[in-house]
């Protein structure tokens, strides 16, 4: 809720006007010491910033105003996210804001909305996503974490993996198997689990960039009320797919590759590489690749803006944006020469840069959220109509 209890009608502004307001808001309020971090901060570090946004009514762009959101149209949500990114704001615990909140608003019961939404706004509840499992990655539907009904509760056993920041989450939304006798997609349910109970064990996984953000979560006789299921029993696969709508365009935004390019140019300037014509040609190539990614993204954003819809062709965005980002970081390592073999912050002619971090970090981009190969399968089957 905004401080005066009455949220403004943001959609009355043009996208450009709203962009100016958003830019000013983030410029004013994002704490300086948290801008442009090269790691995902812990909840304790960013909770104050989260509450600041909440207090001003700027925490959730997409929720309707009646639930304390900004009620933005989809195109303004994009503007919001672009400006948030631009300001260098740190990533907060956003699974509640971006995923479970909108899902409850669309598909939850009134009781679920009342019980969960206010506590997400107040920061009392922080959420993580329990989808992948050790043996269910790209083939997500083969997941085996099992939920059996005992009275009015589910009893859940299994494990989830690649769960981001599970150690800071109070709750998890998860896909669980509730019927083993049917086609794998047809026996899955979508449940919400309180992590603060015996039987939940979180083990952080150190990634190749040296950060511990991903986790494995073990669920050993963990209980959750049947009332915490979203959608009907065995309807979880469709519930999860409904969540992917917005993610499909956002995961293909050029923001990561823009950032990679910026870092590459910083290195090039500091190291004097701009005098090397071979490098300059490669830089122009990757710069054009990034700008073309932005043009493609804008094309889809425009369709969204004018109330249109698109199908699976949006998969091309994620493939191109993430692979371009990787090429930019690869060029950075190559351009760094001997410095490309040094880990952490290194001195480049008086400038301090971390050359390997962007390269290592973006290895994940082509894997999560549907790997590059899965996206190509999607294009081949659904857009190019090739046989299976």
């Amino acid at each position, binding site marked *: 809720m905004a401080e005066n209890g009455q949220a403004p009608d943001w959609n009355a502004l*043009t*996208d450009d006007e709203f962009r100016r307001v958003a830019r000013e808001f983030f410029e004013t309020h994002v704490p300086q010491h948290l801008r442009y971090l090269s790691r995902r901060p812990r909840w304790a570090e960013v909770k104050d910033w989260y509450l600041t946004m909440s207090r001003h009514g700027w925490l959730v762009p997409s929720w309707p105003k009646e639930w304390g959101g900004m009620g933005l149209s989809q195109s303004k949500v994009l503007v919001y996210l672009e400006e948030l*990114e*631009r300001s260098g704001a740190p990533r907060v615990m956003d699974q509640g804001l971006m995923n479970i909140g909108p899902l409850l608003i669309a598909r939850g019961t009134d009781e679920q909305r009342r019980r969960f939404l206010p506590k997400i706004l107040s920061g009392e509840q922080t959420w993580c996503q329990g989808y992948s499992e050790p043996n269910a990655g790209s083939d997500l539907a083969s997941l085996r974490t099992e939920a059996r009904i005992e009275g009015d509760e589910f009893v859940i056993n299994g494990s989830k993996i690649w769960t981001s920041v599970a150690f800071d989450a109070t709750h998890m939304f998860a896909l669980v198997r509730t019927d083993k006798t049917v086609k794998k997609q047809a026996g899955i349910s979508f449940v919400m689990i309180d992590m603060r109970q015996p039987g939940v064990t979180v083990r952080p996984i150190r990634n190749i960039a040296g950060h511990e953000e991903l986790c494995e979560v073990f669920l050993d006789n963990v209980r959750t009320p049947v009332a915490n299921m979203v959608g009907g029993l065995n309807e979880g696969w469709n519930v999860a797919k409904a969540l992917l709508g917005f993610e499909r365009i956002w995961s293909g935004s050029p*923001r990561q590759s*823009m*950032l990679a*390019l*910026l870092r590459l*140019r910083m290195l090039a300037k500091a190291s004097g590489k701009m005098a090397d014509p071979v490098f*300059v*040609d490669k*830089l*122009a*190539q990757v*710069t*054009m690749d990034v*700008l*073309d*990614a932005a*043009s*493609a993204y*804008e*094309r889809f954003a425009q369709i969204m*803006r*004018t109330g249109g819809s698109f199908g699976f*062709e949006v998969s*091309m965005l994620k*493939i*191109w944006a993430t692979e371009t980002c990787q090429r930019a970081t690869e060029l950075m390592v190559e351009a760094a020469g001997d410095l490309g073999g040094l880990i952490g912050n290194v001195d480049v002619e008086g400038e301090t840069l971390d050359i390997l971090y962007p390269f290592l970090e973006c290895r994940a981009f082509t894997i999560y959220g549907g790997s590059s*190969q899965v*996206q*190509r*399968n999607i*294009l*081949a*089957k659904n*857009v*190019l*109509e*090739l*046989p*299976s």
Partner: protein
Amino acid sequence: MQDANTLEAQHETGMLRESAVDFVRRNIETKKLRERRRTLPGYDAGTLSHMAELGWLGIVVPEPYGGLGLGFAEMAVVLQELGKGLMADPMLSVAFAGRVLQHGTNEALKQSLLPPLVEGRLLPCVAWQEVQGGIDPKAIATRAEADGEDVLLTGSKRFVAGAAGAGGFVVSARSSSGYGLYWVTSDAPGVTVRYEWRADETPSGIVELRSVRVSADNVVCAASEGGLAALERAVDEAAVLAAAEMLGVVEAALQMALAYMRTRVQFDKPIGSFQALQHKAADLYVQQELVRAVLQDAVRELDGDGDALERARLASRCKARGSDAGLRVTREVIQLHGAIGFTDEYDAGLYLKRALVLSAFLGNATAHRRRFATLQEDTLAV
């Protein structure tokens, strides 16, 4: 948020696309394309007059000069559709020359040349590149020497698209006072035209000028009046249009390969079911969609009132992406077909050769990448 103008424009574009699609469906015949190889003028005269009747030669010519006064969005749509049928010649070279004339400062010349251009009675083309090609309009040796009120042009122009069948040439030349643009009719004394053959065996002109007399009436743009600025702007515009035709080539070639992949059976399965081929096809699709996206931005830039720098950057991005993607897709389409794709009787090769022509025309990907690098502003918004 679309105002009535945009909707009207979309309606206009939709109608033009429909009529271009229809035109290609009725007239496409790759057999004739093969028969015309190494003949002049390299396109079908009947097809050309049909295009003129439809008003297409005047899409980007303002109404006072007899044109339709539409934008690049409309022109791009028509070229894209014609590109699918490999039948866009000579629209692009004529549009290119029309734009140089329009950007020039000689009003009387515009009034005398543009209406017959629109009607298809007098086809102009641009003679600007020389022995090495390249996209720097100033890298030329052709001289303009003053001779009383007139100038005399001497030099050799190369890579002149549309030279066969052209009624005249817009020629760039240098003089002691700078660079200028001149209108020379193809029958003027001292003009000789020879031909080289492009990848698709359509002609590319070499125009020799020996003391060709140009009266003051036929100066398109004098050195004191902006010199080559009119040419520079038209090169950007034509480069974007070349990418539009390339998009059509890419779309048709990819569709051909996909259709083949759905039906060609090997190892008891359609080859389109093999993941190695599916992923290759998906990558080609990504390239096709990138061309479409950049083209849309570039066309919008040309139809707006952007500044020259932004126009040039977008034109280079568009032409570079179009050239790279065009060559890659048409090459890979041959690979996806296997041996049949390597035969002259199969159409896949025709698309590859058109892609080779369009890729090289008005600067290939490397040339535009290099230009982009020099144009690139120092900062990039995050």
